[in-house]
């Protein structure tokens, strides 16, 4: 008996994989059904649907980037404290304290890559007309995922707390104060008042809520940190689950009828 066979016949192996290696048709079906991760997929698919020239693998790569960012993000959290006192220095010394010294790079470039892959994914879904019935709803789920992905990137941009970070966020969040009615420099905001007291001012408008202050400050850092590390990733994870579920329920990857 070869070593491989010995391992595959051991009680331990059999307790993990409840069937022989997926070498024949039957076991190739069974492996997809018994493994919780693999069973995100159906058992069989249309050949043209999974061709690289059709999907470009962009949905899959977007998901992979999300996983990669989750892993490297958790590792980064070990070294980073979201306070004015520590944030910048924690990033500064990260290269020296973390093994291999490319942790931050993996996270930052991964984030950029995810923005590109999600755009390309949307592009391919559009160009194959895959948003058409019965997949209208899943396209909508996708658009929300797109918005959340951009917000993830945006909130993360602030965390290094260097000049690049706060000014990019300042420029971006300045828009919020021009929100119609809800921003203090937005059209219509001056009409919202009770007697002579205006409801929308720089201490109560949309930008204030976003930043937790009148300008980008320590409160903003905390707020963005929580959004970036907890709130948005959770929302994205839930929506990805919905998205994948619907890909299958809507008939698998699209193809000609």
């Amino acid at each position, binding site marked *: 008996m070869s070593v491989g066979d010995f391992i595959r016949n051991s009680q331990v192996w059999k307790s993990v994989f409840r069937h022989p290696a*997926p070498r024949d048709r039957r076991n190739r079906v069974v492996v*997809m059904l018994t493994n919780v991760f*693999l069973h995100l997929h159906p*058992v*069989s*698919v*249309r*050949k*043209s*649907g*999974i061709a690289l020239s059709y999907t470009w*693998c962009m949905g*899959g*790569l977007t998901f992979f*980037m999300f996983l*990669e960012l989750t892993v490297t993000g958790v590792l980064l959290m070990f070294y980073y404290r979201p306070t004015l006192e520590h944030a*910048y220095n924690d990033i*500064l010394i990260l290269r020296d304290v973390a093994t291999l010294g*490319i942790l*931050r*790079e*993996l996270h*930052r470039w991964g984030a*950029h*890559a995810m923005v590109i892959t999600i755009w*390309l994914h949307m*592009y391919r879904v559009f160009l*194959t*007309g*895959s*948003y*058409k*019935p019965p997949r*209208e709803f899943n*396209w*909508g789920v996708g*658009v929300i995922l797109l*918005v959340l992905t*951009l917000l993830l990137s945006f909130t993360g941009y602030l965390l290094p*707390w*260097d000049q*690049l970070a706060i*000014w*990019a966020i300042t*420029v*971006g969040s300045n*828009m*919020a*104060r*021009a929100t*119609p009615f809800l*921003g203090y*420099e*937005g*059209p*219509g905001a001056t009409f919202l008042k009770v007697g002579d007291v205006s409801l929308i001012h720089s201490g109560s408008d949309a930008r204030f809520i976003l930043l937790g202050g009148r300008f980008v400050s320590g409160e903003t850092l905390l707020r963005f940190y929580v959004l970036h590390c907890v709130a948005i990733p959770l929302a994205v994870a839930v929506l990805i689950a919905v998205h994948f579920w619907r890909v299958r329920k809507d008939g698998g990857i*699209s*193809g*000609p*009828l």
Partner: protein
Amino acid sequence: MTLDKGLQNGLAFFYLLVALLNFGFAAYSMVGAKRRIAGFLWAGVGVLFLLHTVGYFSHQGWMLSAALREFIDGLTGPVTYTMVSIVAFALLLYFRKFFVQPDVAWTILQLSLLAGGWAMTDPNFREIVAKEDNVPISMLIYSVAFFTWLALYRAVQNDERLARGEPVLEKVDDEKVLVWPDLVYTELICMILATFVLIIWAVLLKAPLEQPATSAKAPNPSKAPWYFLGLQEMLVYYDPWMAGVVLPTMIIIGLIAIPYIDFNRGGNGYYSFVERKFAVSIFLFGFVVLWVTLIVLGTFLRGPNWNFFAFFEYWDPHKVLPLNNVNLSQLVWLNVFHIPLDDFKVRFGDFLGPILRELPGIIVVGLYMLALPPLLARTFMKSYFLRMGFVRFITLVTLIQFMAALPIKMVLRWVINLKYIVAIPEIFFNI
């Protein structure tokens, strides 16, 4: 001025990779596609790139001539940039059969790589393109170009098949295959490749970290993250409430609405252009021309004070451009009727005054938003209106109106220096 050795070695390596690419393509043309002449030609191009490699490895220090750089800079401005991208886009769609031919697409790619390589010898160009956070944009340009080519290539093939009454390519490969091994292995390979690329990228390029944050000194230019630079570029033409809030909201709503307003049942599940001309053209225009090229413009060509700087121009913070933009109210009342604008408030008070002053603009915007949809429903888009029904049609036209608002304002700015169509700064209502 000379090129430093490290840069020359980098360029040599770059040209070596490009040469290898060409040899690969030459081999494919000769052996795979059995096209001998094309193969020889591409091998020749490969040799040309190899010569570059040799030149830079031996530190010849070849640079783009200053005269040529100035000539190119002289040609580029925001107007030419936008016009060229729009015209190129129209040509691409119209002559898609020509552009999707592998040899044509490959030629364009090689020309862009050659131009990029030579442009890197210019210090100003290099400084901006090689900035760490700008690297993704080069990737974006090339990947969007590649996938646009791929999609159109398949669309052209499918359209020809449909015209001949044959089934589309996706239909030909219709049989079912097992996910294990076919799909799981593809996924595994994709993951490995992606990991590989990420690690190389992370090793080669350090993540940027600038000076610690201080609210005392704003960098000039202050830019949003690159994926929002299209929006920041819109600030040139619209106030923040439009560029930063209303238009992005319309983009999101518009995207979600697409499946519900596109009543065309054709082209579901395969690449096609002919079956979905309208939808594909509009979406490509929005994504490629308005979104991607504006990001490129905002990143590479906008410098201090958000002034336009051509490719090889030094980002001079003291560059001053004359600001002589005027509002529509000024054009109408002052230039035509010779009524000073201040008169309105004096005569009609704080509420009615500004409204009367801005009446021309309010009428223009009102006509655009309210009169255009019924007009279109009765003329150009009559067949759409009849097939879509009222709600779908109004949604579609409104979305297109918002999308067109940007190019319209651009043209007005360039042609008559128009600042605002409606300007009521008293309540921050400027359009």
